[in-house]
């Protein structure tokens, strides 16, 4: 059995009993204090736009002739959301999140990221809400 076949078996075993199918998503990663937006299940390279924003690029986008941008991450989410009046106790609208990013970081790179990458991506993939389940510990209250 090749390593790919062995890993296929292990991945299938690991997913046994779970729903398993990929779906484009946005969620709060409690442990790493960030909001992840993921449009495609693929091998990704993370590129920093700023201290707070990272773009996810498909490592093999050239092979499929598709867009390289498959997601993004907003870091320091607890503080960012509190500062912008967004509560992590309930689902957050992605559009509100992107508006808050533009307001908080008035910068050309950020504007290009939000309007040129993030908005088209979430629109195409119909990612509308940030899921916030399983948040541990106290949350900062929105300002």
């Amino acid at each position, binding site marked *: 059995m*090749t*390593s*790919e*076949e*062995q*890993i*296929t078996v*292990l*991945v299938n*075993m*690991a*997913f046994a009993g*779970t*729903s*398993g*199918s*990929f*779906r484009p*998503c946005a*969620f709060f*990663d*409690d*442990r*790493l*204090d960030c909001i992840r937006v*993921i449009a495609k*299940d*693929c*091998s*990704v*390279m*993370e*590129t*920093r736009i700023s*201290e*707070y924003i990272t773009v*996810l690029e498909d*490592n*093999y986008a050239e092979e499929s002739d598709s867009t390289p941008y498959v997601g993004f991450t907003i*870091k*320091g989410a*607890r*503080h*960012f959301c509190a500062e912008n009046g967004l509560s992590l106790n309930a689902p957050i609208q992605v559009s509100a999140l992107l508006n808050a990013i533009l307001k908080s970081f008035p910068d050309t790179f950020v504007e290009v990221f939000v309007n040129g990458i993030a908005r088209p991506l979430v629109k195409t993939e119909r990612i509308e809400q940030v899921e916030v389940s*399983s948040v*541990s*510990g*106290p949350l*900062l209250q929105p300002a």
Partner: protein
Amino acid sequence: MRDIQRVGPYADIVVARSPADPEQTVKLGLGEACLQQNFRFGLSTAIAQYYGMVQDGMNSAVHLFQGIKRPLMYGNDKEVDKSVLVYSWRPVTDFMWAGSRFDGRVIRKVPPEGRVFVVLVMPESQPIDFPGVGKVMGSIEKWNWVKEDPFLSNAPVDWNKRYDKKLWSRNL
């Protein structure tokens, strides 16, 4: 590679080079929340990379960095960012899931040039000693590729701006 073996709060246990001395090894756990997150959203490629690159690959790390320069709060602790460990190296293969969850399979890829693989670890403030395993010094929370630094091979680009310090590097 092997099936995951749960130990205490960890989804699996792996061996990695010690933060104190790269010639020594420590045990790290795979964070259960991290694993569940991948299951919940069907992120099969991340699971394939865990089995193919993380589970038996941590000893390949060439650099270890500490402290990520970005805000990271967990519970009441506002300074978690300072303790995060980042292992980096350049694996010769990458793995990804192709097809649907039900009829897909793992495929091996040659990683694009100029990329390194990083694994983020949260050190445990009070490591627990598990029978037959020993102390688990931290939990693996994430792994992904990053652009490689043009001046320090096997390290993420701008590593000196991303991280507080480099704990060690190994000569290959």
